[in-house]
Structure formats: structure tokens, C-alpha cells
């Protein structure tokens, strides 16, 4: 199943060291991992993208985070989020990306920037109640193309579009 995830607020946090600026805020950071926001009532998941950048992603509406010594840029409109859910997700991804998404190679909460359908995306594995799930962030202007390409390639694997309800527990 492929689902358009949203609405999500997304902020890019850039600093010489993302780990150091986020730690005081209780926001755990690892350069290739998706980590849930720490204590202190934070509403964001922290996606580690590079040593100098994290994406803070939270369900809308959120207040823009204040991160001292860092540049925070609102990318809520700029990135679209799609989720690929279900046991055949890997077979479909195998036809769209050269990233190794095998269970042992791309563990739960792993994040990678990689080509998908020939465009750059940020893809995270974030299983939901034991169900395999991949969340894909893509530039908004490419979202429709990525959605359609994924559906086309996934058709023979039984891929269907789904609504937001599917993601609820």
C-alpha cells in the first residue's frame, strides 16, 4: 500500500554539528537514524540526514522549533511524505532504487538518502506495529511523479493507494 502521509511540519536544522545543537533540547540525533523526540514535550521525530543536518518532522500543527546556534528552515511545503506499507514493499523498492533495503541491511529506524525512480529521496524504515513500513520524503514538485512511478512499478506486486486511516493503529 502507498499512502500520502500528512500533514506534517518539517524543519531543516543546520549547524556545524547537528548533534551538539540538538542535544541540549533533548532531541537525540544520529546521522543515519530516525529517532523520536526526547523528553520535554517535544513533538518532533529527529531524522539524521548528515553530520551537519537534521530534519525535525512532526504532525501539524507545530510551533517552529527554536534551536540556538543553528539555522532552522521551514520545509513543510517543500517536502512531501509518502509511506510504503506491507510485506511486498521491499520487492517494489527493489525495482525503484539501488539502495539495499533488505531487512538486515536497512534496519528499523535506519535512514538513507538515495535515488528512487531516478530522483533523490530520503527514505526511512519505520515499522508500524510489526508491519514493514518505509517513509519516503521527496521534493514536492516531484511527488506526483514519484507517486505515479511507484504505483506503475508496484502494480504487478499488488500495490494499491491507501488513505490516511491505514496508518492509524
Amino acid at each position, binding site marked *: 500500500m502507498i499512502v500520502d502521509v500528512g500533514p506534517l511540519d518539517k524543519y531543516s536544522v543546520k549547524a556545524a554539528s547537528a548533534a551538539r545543537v540538538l542535544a541540549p533540547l533533548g532531541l537525540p540525533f544520529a546521522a543515519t537514524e530516525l529517532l523520536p523526540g526526547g523528553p520535554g514535550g517535544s513533538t518532533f521525530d529527529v531524522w539524521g540526514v548528515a553530520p551537519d543536518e537534521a530534519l525535525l518532522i512532526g504532525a501539524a500543527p507545530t510551533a517552529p522549533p527554536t534551536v540556538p546556534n543553528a539555522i532552522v528552515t521551514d520545509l513543510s511545503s517543500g517536502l512531501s511524505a509518502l509511506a510504503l506499507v506491507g510485506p511486498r514493499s521491499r520487492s517494489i523498492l527493489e525495482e525503484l532504487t539501488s539502495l539495499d533495503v533488505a531487512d538486515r541491511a536497512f534496519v528499523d529506524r535506519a535512514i538513507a538518502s538515495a535515488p528512487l525512480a531516478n530522483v*533523490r529521496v530520503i527514505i526511512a524504515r519505520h515499522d508500524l506495529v510489526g508491519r514493514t513500513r518505509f517513509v519516503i520524503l521527496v521534493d514536492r514538485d516531484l511527488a506526483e511523479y514519484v507517486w505515479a512511478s511507484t504505483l506503475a512499478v508496484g502494480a504487478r506486486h499488488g500495490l494499491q493507494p491507501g488513505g490516511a486511516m491505514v496508518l492509524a493503529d
Partner: protein
Amino acid sequence: MSFLVPCPQCGPRDVYEFRFGGETLRRPSPDATPLVWTNYRYMRVNRDGNAREWWFHRLGCRRWFVTERDTVRNVVSASGWATGD
């Protein structure tokens, strides 16, 4: 061409995920002679052996990094973030 380039952030990836940024060079000082500037602009060592080069991971993390690559065998032996070169 299908060799792997090890991105310091993303790990080894197919070369086509990257943009090749050329040999690492030292930018001349502003008052260097025109000859030095011409060499900087247009002349390259193009070594057959170990070369230090820039790469940009355009289909991945979108960061610049530097590699040591054996240009004859197309094997990258080392890669890392730039350090004030």
C-alpha cells in the same frame, strides 16, 4: 563505468549517484602571475594512479567530500569530508 564510491555519510554507492568535482587544487593568491592562474583554471595533473578528487553526492546526501582514487583500476581507497584544503 559502475564502480563504487564510498560516501562518508551514505557508504559505498554507484558512481552515477555522484557528480565528479575534479582534482583537489590550491587556489592561487590574488596577486599570482597570469601563468599560475591559467594553470589553475585549465591544467590538470590527470595522474594515472592515486588521485585526490572532489565528489558531490547529488542523488544522496548532497554533500561534497574528497576521495583518494586509483584512476587506473577505478578503486577508491579512502574518502572523507574536506578539511580546509
